[in-house]
């Protein structure tokens, strides 16, 4: 009964989305307030019904209702509660429902908090959101119904892929979808602006918070995914340039460019056409990622049970949504008037450079991801494009971006003073040089590229600190004045400094972990000790340990430094009988400056065990960087300017930003 209610709620939501997708757009065209007024209640109702459907499915998982086919295929009574719930989105149908729930949530937020938007713009934005909703709800209803019954119902489910039974991965999809779907807001605003033929600073101010929400969530989502890959796949790596990883990275890159270009629209009333295009592409990349993963064109751990029919449907959706909006763009974009030329040496000039580099990097990753697919499609045979390609192309593009970042952030709008900015950044330059020297001295092999990269990391952190110090007058005026200035500093300035220095932290983590990783692979017998990077790892033995829905082979290792015990490490190999597969659980000892990472391999049958032990310096900084980046986004989101009315169009408060 509950499942039928869920199914029925999806049908009702679909009906409402049709109303929401058609009537307000007609209303906005005819300037008919009654028709435009349909948008907000329809969005609220759509959210309510999708929420009911989502709760119904969650209930089926929680009580292990195996008469629902999806639950029988992907759940099991013995699964811990957390994974019963996360199992809702651990499959194709349920994850589409989550996707739609988030889409409806964004619609609700525009309806609820967007009262100060001009009526026409609000109606159009909600109308376009409704159109997207029609597409995805139809996709769910006609190709991926999560509420199908199974008769007779089995006594036990088949279980969830054990790789997905993990706390990091339980929350990876919701954040990722919050990011993907969040870009639908920027997209809807962009298409609405194209229909109206008007983009102004107020528009940019409305779009920016939504983009920030999406970008922040996507940052967290990608970081969770990479963290999971790091500790679960057991290879000590954290990013593999896997096509599916790239599929989530592409919208992030475009979203980052969009965040920066929207600033130029807001402050200088120019770069409009480009910003609109970025908004369309950001959501386009999100849809593309969905298409690639769901259609079965890419195979990886992310691939759900695929069905070509679904691929055709999503491709159709992609063509209508992205193709349609790009045609609209081609027709309307020439009408958007730019705000005139501007000097290359200025904040806006620096932001254009940022956009050029990010756009090129996006193109490179896009090409590397899709080239093998395109080549195979035209019968050119199989190739694989791996890490070497991306390292050789992506990294060189990032170097100028990172070096220019602190300079650009301190440049004044309209006309910047490059020598002046560089002069004020001399402290950061000094810090960077110091770090390069220190790195060369510590690292005996003098890996000069790595040392320079560490210098770039220090430059980013130092640059952000100098920027804050300059703005607050640190060391120039009295401390109390500095504190007052710091308190009055716009939140967005804090957000920028935090996010940019987070980038530095991440660069340091990436550089150190890829340049100075130590790896020991050997067969150990109980009592054997392996030394690495100042630690001794002693193997104590291995034995079977039962888990809730698996049996684990657990190794016991003692980690000592200079003869003193630091901690015990328990890597596991888990065998999931219901799912007939196994996972490796690396044991990781994390310190602020390094990880010791132990993986238990196979037995040699004579009491010896294959083990891999890694020392990964600064690897926690990668995720610390991602977290700080997300914090920067959130701080920026709380900026007053995004909440208080925009100068031209709205006089009242703009609580759009509070939607976060």
């Amino acid at each position, binding site marked *: 009964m509950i499942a039928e209610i869920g199914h029925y709620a999806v049908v009702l939501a679909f009906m409402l989305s049709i109303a929401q997708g058609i009537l307000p757009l007609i209303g906005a065209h005819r300037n008919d307030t009654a028709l435009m007024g349909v948008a907000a209640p329809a969005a609220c109702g759509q959210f309510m019904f999708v929420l009911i459907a989502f709760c119904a499915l969650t209930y089926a998982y929680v009580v292990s209702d195996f008469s629902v086919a999806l639950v029988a295929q992907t759940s099991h009574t013995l699964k811990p509660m957390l994974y019963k719930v996360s199992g809702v989105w651990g499959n194709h149908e349920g994850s589409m429902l989550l996707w739609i729930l988030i889409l409806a949530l964004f619609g609700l937020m525009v309806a609820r908090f967007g009262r100060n938007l001009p009526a026409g713009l609000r109606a159009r934005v909600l109308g376009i959101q409704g159109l997207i909703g029609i597409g995805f709800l139809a996709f769910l209803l006609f190709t991926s119904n999560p509420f199908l019954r199974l008769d007779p119902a089995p006594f036990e489910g088949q279980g969830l892929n054990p790789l997905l039974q993990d706390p990091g991965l339980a929350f990876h999809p919701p954040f990722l979808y919050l990011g993907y779907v969040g870009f639908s807001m920027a997209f809807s605003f962009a298409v609405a602006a194209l229909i109206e033929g008007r983009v102004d600073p107020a528009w940019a101010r409305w779009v920016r918070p939504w983009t920030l929400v999406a970008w922040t969530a996507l940052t967290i989502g990608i970081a969770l995914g990479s963290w999971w890959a790091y500790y679960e796949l057991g290879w000590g790596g954290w990013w593999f340039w896997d096509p599916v990883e790239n599929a989530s990275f592409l919208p992030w890159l475009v979203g980052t460019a969009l965040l920066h270009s929207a600033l130029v629209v807001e402050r200088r009333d120019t770069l409009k056409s480009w910003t609109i295009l970025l908004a369309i592409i950001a959501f386009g990349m999100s849809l593309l990622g969905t298409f690639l993963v769901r259609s079965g064109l890419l195979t990886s751990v992310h691939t759900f049970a695929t069905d*070509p029919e679904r*691929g055709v449907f999503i491709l159709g959706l992609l*063509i209508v949504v*992205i193709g349609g909006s*790009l*045609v609209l763009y*081609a027709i309307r*974009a*020439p009408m958007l008037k730019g705000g005139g030329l501007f000097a290359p040496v200025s904040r806006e000039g620096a932001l254009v450079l940022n956009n050029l580099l990010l756009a090129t990097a996006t193109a490179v990753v896009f090409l590397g991801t899709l080239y093998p697919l395109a080549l195979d499609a035209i019968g050119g045979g199989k190739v694989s494009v791996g890490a070497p390609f991306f390292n050789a192309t992506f990294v060189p593009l990032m170097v100028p971006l990172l070096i220019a970042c602190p300079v650009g952030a301190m440049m004044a709008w309209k006309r910047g003073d490059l020598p002046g900015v560089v002069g004020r950044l001399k402290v950061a330059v000094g810090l960077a040089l110091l770090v390069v020297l220190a790195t060369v001295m510590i690292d005996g092999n003098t890996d000069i590229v790595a040392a320079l990269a560490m210098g770039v990391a220090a430059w980013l952190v130092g640059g952000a600190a100098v920027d804050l110090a300059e703005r607050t007058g640190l060391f120039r005026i009295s401390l109390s004045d500095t504190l007052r200035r710091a308190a009055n500093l716009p939140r967005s300035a804090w957000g920028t400094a935090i996010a940019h220095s987070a980038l530095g932290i991440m660069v340091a983590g990436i550089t150190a972990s890829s340049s100075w990783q130590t790896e020991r692979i050997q067969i150990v017998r109980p009592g054997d000790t392996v030394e690495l990077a100042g630690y001794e790892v002693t193997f104590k033995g291995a034995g079977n340990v039962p888990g809730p829905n698996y049996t684990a082979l657990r190794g016991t290792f003692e980690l000592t430094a200079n003869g003193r015990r630091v901690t015990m490490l328990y890597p596991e190999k888990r065998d999931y009988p219901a799912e007939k597969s196994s996972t490796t659980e690396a044991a990781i000892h994390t310190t602020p400056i390094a990880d010791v990472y132990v993986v238990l391999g196979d037995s040699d049958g004579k009491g010896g065990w*294959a083990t891999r032990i890694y020392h990964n310096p600064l690897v926690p900084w990668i995720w610390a960087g991602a977290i700080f980046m997300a914090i920067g986004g959130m701080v920026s989101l709380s900026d007053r300017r995004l909440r208080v009315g925009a100068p031209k169009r709205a006089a009242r408060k703009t609580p759009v930003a509070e939607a976060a």
Partner: protein
Amino acid sequence: MLRPLTLIPVAVFAVLAVVFAVYLWQVGPGGKDISKIPSAMINKPAPQFDLKPIANLPARLKIPGLKTADLKGGVSLVNVWASWCPPCRIEHPVLMNLAQQGVTIYGINYKDKPEDATRFLDQLGNPFKKVGVDNTGRTAIDWGVYGYPETFVVDASGHIRYRHVGQIYPHQLESLILPLLKQAAQPVTDSSKAGSAGAGGS
């Protein structure tokens, strides 16, 4: 009102959409299996190599080394294996079964310790007529080996006719390996057909 510059995005997207549609159509029902990895070596002569036998083999296991010339004169399987590779261990009974049916199987022992390899054959039996030791991994690279175990069907003229990545499952004996061996026994003129089966099963 249209300007060429703003038409670029939609043009790029159109090309992309066509590529996706073509690929989706190819992958569609009964279409090609994209998880299959083709080998560049199909229908090419087996690479040149001359590998030593496993060192210090006891008298009960008299297995000579393997070189390219050995592959000529009859259809054979070349299996790349190692004692440290768990799927190789699981696959081994299948190879034993094939050897009992009279199939010639050659082994390339990949980056293994001689004593481990000897113990492996002692415990599980020896299906191999000859085994060459590839300690450097060079020969495996020449063969284009992707993962372990990996098995090649080589015809009487020493040409590679099929590659099987991963272990051979028992059910694949009748459905895949034996028919392939029969096919490889046909004259070389038929090789293009066998090759396409290996290259992607389209």
